[in-house]
C-alpha cells in the first residue's frame, strides 16, 4: 500500500467499535485496491488519546477515536457535544453533522490546529449512573462520589446533575468501586460486561445524561497528502461504518440488559428526566457554552 494509517482507540477488542473500525479499514482497502491501508490498535496500544492527537497534528499517519471534550481543547465549541442532554437521539446526531455552523468549527479545527474530523456519527449509546442505590431525582445523587473522566466538560456536567465528580483513570474504576473509594460511575451499557461491573455495583439508573458521540480524527497534513478520491472514500466509509455500529450498539443493549439482570443487577428505568435536564443547564452556563447550545438548537429548529 502507498498509504498506511495506524488507527488507535482506547476501547477493548470486544467493543463493537473495534470490529466497526476494522470493517471500515477493509472497505477502504477494497475500494482503493489495497492502496490505502488502515491498521486498527485497540486498548490505547499506541498511547493515550491526547498524545495521539498531538502526534497527528504533526503529520504522523495515525488516527484516533475521540470525543468533543478533547477537541474542545482546541476549538472550544466542540465541548458542547459532551454537555448533559445535548442531543436526545441518533437522528439528531445525523442532522448535526450537516449543520453549517458545525462545518465552520470543523474547518477551524483543520486549518488552525491540523486536526481533520473524518466523521462524527459514531454513537456509543447513553451514559447512565451506575450506583449501589436507586437514583430517580437529582437529589438522590447528592453527596455521591461518581467517577467521571477528568476533562472540565465532563466534571461540570456531572456536578450540575447533583453528584460529586471524581476524576480517576478508566482502568481504576473496578477496584475503586470494589473498595468503595467511590460510590458509582457513569458509563454506557457496553462497559458493564467489559468490566464485570455486576460484581461491584447493583443499580443501573437510566438517566441518559449523555448520548456519547465519538469523532474519528486524523492529521490534516496527512489527509491533504491523499488523492482526492481516496479522501472521499475514507470519509464516506467512515460515516457508513459509524451508522452501522451505532445501530448495532443500540440493538446489543437489549441483550446486555437481560444478561446483567440475570447476574443480579437492577435496572431503574422509571425516571422523570425533566428535573435532570433542568439541572444540567447549569453546566452550559458555568462552561460558557450556553450560547453555543442555543445557536445549535436554533439551527436545528429545536425549542429547548
Amino acid at each position, binding site marked *: 500500500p502507498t498509504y498506511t494509517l495506524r488507527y488507535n482507540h482506547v476501547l477493548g477488542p470486544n467493543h463493537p467499535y473495534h470490529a466497526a473500525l476494522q470493517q471500515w479499514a477493509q472497505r477502504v482497502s477494497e475500494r482503493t485496491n489495497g492502496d490505502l491501508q488502515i491498521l486498527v490498535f485497540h486498548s490505547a496500544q499506541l498511547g493515550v488519546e491526547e498524545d495521539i492527537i498531538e502526534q497527528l*497534528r504533526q503529520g504522523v499517519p495515525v488516527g484516533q477515536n475521540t470525543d468533543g471534550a478533547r477537541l474542545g*481543547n482546541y476549538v472550544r465549541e466542540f465541548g458542547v457535544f459532551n454537555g448533559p442532554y445535548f442531543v436526545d437521539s441518533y437522528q439528531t446526531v445525523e442532522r448535526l453533522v450537516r449543520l453549517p455552523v458545525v462545518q465552520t468549527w470543523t474547518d477551524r479545527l483543520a486549518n488552525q490546529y491540523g486536526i481533520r474530523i473524518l466523521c462524527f456519527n459514531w454513537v456509543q449509546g447513553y451514559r447512565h449512573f451506575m450506583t449501589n442505590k436507586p437514583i430517580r431525582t437529582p437529589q438522590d445523587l447528592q453527596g455521591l462520589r461518581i467517577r467521571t473522566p*477528568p476533562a472540565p466538560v465532563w466534571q461540570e456536567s456531572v456536578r450540575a446533575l447533583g453528584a*460529586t465528580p*471524581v*476524576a*480517576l*483513570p478508566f482502568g481504576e474504576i473496578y477496584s475503586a468501586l470494589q473498595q468503595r473509594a467511590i460510590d458509582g460511575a457513569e458509563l454506557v451499557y457496553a462497559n458493564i460486561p467489559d468490566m464485570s461491573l455486576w460484581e461491584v455495583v447493583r443499580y443501573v439508573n437510566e438517566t441518559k445524561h449523555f448520548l456519547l458521540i465519538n469523532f474519528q480524527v486524523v492529521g490534516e497534513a496527512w489527509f491533504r497528502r491523499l488523492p482526492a478520491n481516496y479522501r472521499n472514500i475514507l470519509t464516506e466509509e467512515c460515516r457508513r461504518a459509524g451508522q452501522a455500529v451505532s445501530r448495532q450498539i443500540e440493538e446489543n443493549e437489549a441483550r446486555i440488559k437481560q444478561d446483567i439482570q440475570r447476574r443480579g443487577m437492577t435496572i431503574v428505568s422509571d425516571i422523570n428526566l425533566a428535573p435532570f435536564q433542568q439541572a444540567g443547564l447549569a453546566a452550559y452556563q458555568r462552561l460558557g457554552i450556553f450560547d453555543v447550545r442555543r445557536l445549535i438548537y436554533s439551527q436545528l429548529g429545536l425549542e429547548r
Partner: protein
Amino acid sequence: MGQRLLRLEEGLAQFFLALTVAVIFAGGVARFLGRPLDWAMDLATFAFAWCVFLSADVALRQDRHLAVELLTGRLSPRWRLGLRLFSLLLMALFLALLFGYSLQMAYLTRFRSFQGIPGLSYTWVTLSVSVGSLLLLLTTLGRIRQAWRAWREGPCS
C-alpha cells in the same frame, strides 16, 4: 556552575517528590470526605515528571544507572576507556537531540492543557524533559572531558 547548580537540582527534585506525595495524599483524603480535588491527579503527575527528569541527572552523577559489565570487565584498561569514551559521546549526542526536540515539542504542545487543570498548558510539563536532558548533557560532557584527559595521558602512565 558546579556546586550551587547541583544543590539546586537536588533540592528541586526533592521538592517535586514531596509535592507529588502531598497532592496524592490530599486527593485521597479529600475524596473520602466527599470533596474530591479535580486537580489532584494532574498536579501529582506534573510534579512527578519534574521529579523524574531532575532525579535522572542526580542518579547519573551518583553513578546509580545500571550497566551490564559482562564484556567490559574482561578488557584491557585502554580498551575499556575507549569504549567508555565512545558510549559517552553517543549519550551526549542522544541527549543533545532530545534537548533540541523537547524544545520543539514544548512549543507544539502549547494548546494542550491538563484535563483537570484547564489553565495549565502541557508545555510546562514538557519543559521538564528539556531541563532534564540539558542537565544530563552537562554531566555527560563533564565525564567526556575526564575520559578524554585520561585517554591522552593513557600511554604515559
